[in-house]
C-alpha cells in the first residue's frame, strides 16, 4: 500500500478539523483539503509543554501540541463546541491571541453545534453552518458538488466496512483502517482515486471483536491485537471515517442539509446520553456477530467512563464477552498479549469478562 502522506503534499491548502461536527464538505467547497487533526493522547506532547504547567487534560494537551507541529500544514483549524474540551481549546487559543502569543498556532474557527434535537438546536446549527461557510469562503454551487462527492466517499467506505464482517474471513481491522482513515484527510475525489488503486487485501481470520474507545488508537495496536488471534470487525473508537454515518441530502439548501446530517451522526461519548451509547455499541456487536468487546478507556476523567458500566452490563445480558485493555497497553508488549489472552479466554467461555 502506498503511503498516503505523499498525496497530502502540495496544493490545495489544508484546513484542519477536529472532532465530531466539523463538516468536511464545507472545507472542500472552499477549495481546501480537509486535514484531520488526530492524536494519541497517551503519547508525550512536547510542543505543549510550555502551557501545561505540569498537568492538564491529556487529550487537550496532545491537540495543542499537534497544532503547533502542524502550523505549516494547515491554514486554519475548525473546532466544535462539542465535546466541551474542544471549546476549551478554542478559548485557550483566543486567550493566547489576546496575549499576542498565538503566532505558533493556526487561526481557529469555532462551530457551535448542538445535538439536543430541539428546535433551538436546529436554529443554532443552521446559523453556525452559514457562519462557517462565510468564514471558509464556500459557495453554494461548490457545496452541492462537495456534498455529492463526500456521499460517494461514504458509499466507498461502507463498501470497505462491509468486508470487515459477515463472513468468517474478510478484511482485517488493520487493513480496513489503512483503507478508510485517509478519507479524513484527502479531498473526496483524491481519496476515491487513491482507494480505487489499492491492491486487494488478503483475507483475515480470527475471533471477531469490537474495539471500543473514546480515543484514536494507533493502527499498530490493531495490528498487534490481530496478530494475537483476533479480528477487529468494528469499532466506535473515534469520529473519523469509520463512523461513516448518514449521507447528506443532496437538496437545494446545502447548508441546511449539512446541519441535519451532522446532527444525526453516530453517537460519541461526549454529547450523547449513555442510553444511546449502549444501544449503539450493542447494536454494532450484534450485527457484526462480535464475540467480545475490547474497551480501551482513558485513565483520566472522561464521559466514556460513565457509559462503561451500563455498556458492559448490556453486553453481559446479551452474552457477549468484554475485556478492558490495561493502561500500560502500549508501553509493554506483554501487557497487550496478556489482555488479548484474557479476551480470547472470555470469548471461548473459559474465563470471566473483566477489567
Amino acid at each position, binding site marked *: 500500500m502506498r503511503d498516503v502522506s505523499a498525496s497530502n503534499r502540495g496544493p490545495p491548502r489544508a484546513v484542519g478539523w477536529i472532532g465530531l461536527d466539523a463538516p468536511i464538505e464545507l472545507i472542500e467547497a472552499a477549495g481546501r483539503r480537509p486535514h484531520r487533526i488526530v492524536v494519541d493522547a497517551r503519547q508525550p506532547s512536547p510542543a*505543549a509543554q*510550555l*502551557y*501545561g*504547567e*505540569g*498537568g*492538564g*487534560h*491529556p487529550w*487537550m*494537551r496532545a491537540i*495543542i501540541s499537534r497544532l503547533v507541529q502542524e502550523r505549516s500544514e494547515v491554514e486554519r483549524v475548525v473546532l466544535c*463546541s*462539542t*465535546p*466541551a*474540551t474542544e*471549546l*476549551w*481549546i*478554542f*478559548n*485557550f487559543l*483566543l*486567550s*493566547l491571541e*489576546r*496575549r499576542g502569543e498565538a503566532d505558533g498556532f493556526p487561526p481557529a474557527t*469555532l462551530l*457551535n453545534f*448542538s*445535538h*439536543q434535537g*430541539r*428546535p*433551538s*438546536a436546529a*436554529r*443554532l446549527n443552521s*446559523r*453556525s453552518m452559514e*457562519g462557517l461557510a462565510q468564514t471558509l469562503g464556500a459557495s453554494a454551487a461548490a457545496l452541492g458538488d462537495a456534498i455529492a462527492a463526500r456521499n460517494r466517499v461514504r458509499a466507498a467506505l461502507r463498501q470497505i466496512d462491509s468486508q470487515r464482517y459477515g463472513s468468517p474471513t474478510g478484511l482485517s481491522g488493520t487493513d480496513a483502517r489503512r483503507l478508510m482513515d485517509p478519507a479524513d484527510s484527502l479531498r473526496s475525489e483524491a481519496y476515491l482515486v487513491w482507494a480505487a488503486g489499492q491492491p486487494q487485501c488478503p483475507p483475515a481470520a480470527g475471533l471477531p471483536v469490537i474495539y471500543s474507545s473514546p480515543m484514536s488508537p494507533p493502527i499498530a495496536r490493531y495490528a498487534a491485537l490481530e496478530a494475537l488471534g483476533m479480528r477487529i470487525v468494528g469499532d466506535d473508537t473515534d469520529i473519523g471515517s469509520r463512523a461513516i454515518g448518514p449521507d447528506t441530502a443532496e437538496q437545494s439548501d446545502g447548508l441546511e442539509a449539512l446541519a441535519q446530517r451532522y446532527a444525526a451522526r453516530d453517537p460519541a*461519548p*461526549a*454529547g450523547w*446520553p*449513555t*442510553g444511546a451509547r449502549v444501544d449503539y455499541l450493542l447494536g454494532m456487536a450484534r450485527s457484526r456477530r462480535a464475540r467480545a468487546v475490547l474497551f480501551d478507556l482513558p*485513565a*483520566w*476523567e*472522561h*464521559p466514556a*467512563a*460513565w457509559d*462503561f*458500566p451500563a455498556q*458492559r*452490563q448490556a453486553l453481559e445480558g446479551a452474552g457477549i464477552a468484554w475485556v478492558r485493555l490495561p493502561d500500560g497497553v502500549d508501553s509493554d508488549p506483554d501487557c497487550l498479549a496478556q489482555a488479548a489472552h484474557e479476551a480470547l479466554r472470555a470469548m471461548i467461555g473459559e474465563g470471566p469478562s473483566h477489567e
Partner: protein
Amino acid sequence: MSDTDAGNRFGAAFQNTRTQHLSFARENSAYNREWFLEVKRRAEEGEPLALVSADVPTEIFKSMDIPVVVNQWWAAVVAAKQKSADYLGRLNAQGYRENLCKYCSLAYCSTLEEDPAQAVWGGMPRPNVVVSSSDCNSQSKIFELWARRSDIPFFILDRAAPQAPGLSGWLERLRSGWDQVFGLEAIDFLADQYRELIGFLEHHTGRRFDPERLREIMALVNEQEDYYRRTRDLISATRPAPLNVADQMPATMIPQWHRGTLWGRDRARLFLEETEARVKAGEASSRRERVRLMWLGTGLWYNLDFYEYFEKRYGAVFVWSIYLAIAADAYATEPSHPGEDPLRTLAGRMTKIYSMLNTAPFNVEWFIAEARRAGIDGVVSLSGGTEDDCRETFGQHYLVRKAFEDAGIPILRLGVDNADARSWNDEAIRARVGAFIEQMILARKGRTVPGE
C-alpha cells in the same frame, strides 16, 4: 458548598475554632436546613420538585413556584455529614471507577442509601424532573443516571460560545452591555433553550410560567447582588480588611442559593450593614494586616480555620475569594435593551457567571482587575498541575500565572485537584503558604516575619 456547619467536606476531621465576626452566620445555616425540610414536606405532599446542576438558573423554577434543589449544594450537605466515603463507595461498587467526579456525583450517590434513618436530613425526596447543563460532558451523564434511577424526565441545556467576544473594555460593560461582550449567538441560543425548558416544566409539573413574576425575581436578585457589590467594594477598599474570606464565603453563599427571595435580599443587606458597622468601628479581621491575599478556587468549607492561621502568624489576610466577587460583578444584570424578554436577560446573567468563573480569557482578566481593586499582594490557587483537574482545563494555569506575573503579583499553586479533605495535608500546606508569604511577599516588601 455553603453550609457553615460543613465541618469537613469529604470525611477527614478538621476543627473549626475560629470566631465568627458576623452575627447572623448561625441563623443562615439554620434557615437553610429549615428551608430544605419545607421543600421535603411539600414534595411528600405531592408538589413537584426539580433537581438541577449549579449552572441552571433557579430563577425560572422560582418564578413557576417549583421547589428546586441544586446538585452541588446537596453534595456539600451530604459531605458535611461525613457520608461521602460511604456513598461514593456504593457508586464504585456498581462498577464506576474511583477517580470519577466526586464533586458532581455525590448527590446522586446519596440516593443509593437504602435506610431512611441513615439518610442525611431524612434524604433527598424523589424529584419529578432533573435539569443539567452540558458544560462538562460528564455531568449530564450523572444526571441521566439520576433520571433513570428515579424514572423521571431529564432536560439538558447546551452551550454555545462567542466566535469573537467583544473584549474591548468588557469589564465596564457587564451590567447592561453584556450581549455585545459574550456574543449574541451564545446568549440567544441559551434564551431559546430556556423557553423550551419552560415548556418541558409546564408539561411535567403542571405549573405555569409567568414572565412578570420572573421580572420581579430578577429585580430582587439585582437588589441582592448590589448589596454584595457594595460589600465587596468596601472590603476591597478598607485597610485593614473588616472581614476575611472565612466570614465572607458563608455569608454570601447561603443567601445566594436563595437569590430572588426576600429572605436572600435581606440577608445580603444585613451582610452589608454589619460590614459597614465594622468599618466604622475600626474592627478588622486582623489589626496587624500587612499582606493581602487572594484565594483562587473552591473554598475550603471544611477547614475555614486554615485562612486565619496566616493572619496570626504573618498578618496575612485572605481578603478575596470568587464567591463575593462573582456575586458583585456577574449576577446583577439589567436588560440589554428596554422591554427585553427577561429570559434573555437571564441568559446574559448565566453566561456572565459561567464565563467569568470558568472561561479564559474572561476569568483571567477579571482576576487581575479584582486583584488590583483589592490591593492584593499575593495569590494562592487551590488547584492545578494534575490531570484530573476537571474545571480549569488545559492551559488555564499558564494563562493565570502569566497574567499575574505580568501584573507583578506573585502566585502560589497548591495543586490540590479538588477540595477533597482526604487529599489535604494541613501542616504541609500551611508550611508552603507560609514560605510563599515569607519569600515571595514579605521579602519583596523588605519585611521579615514578626518576631524575627
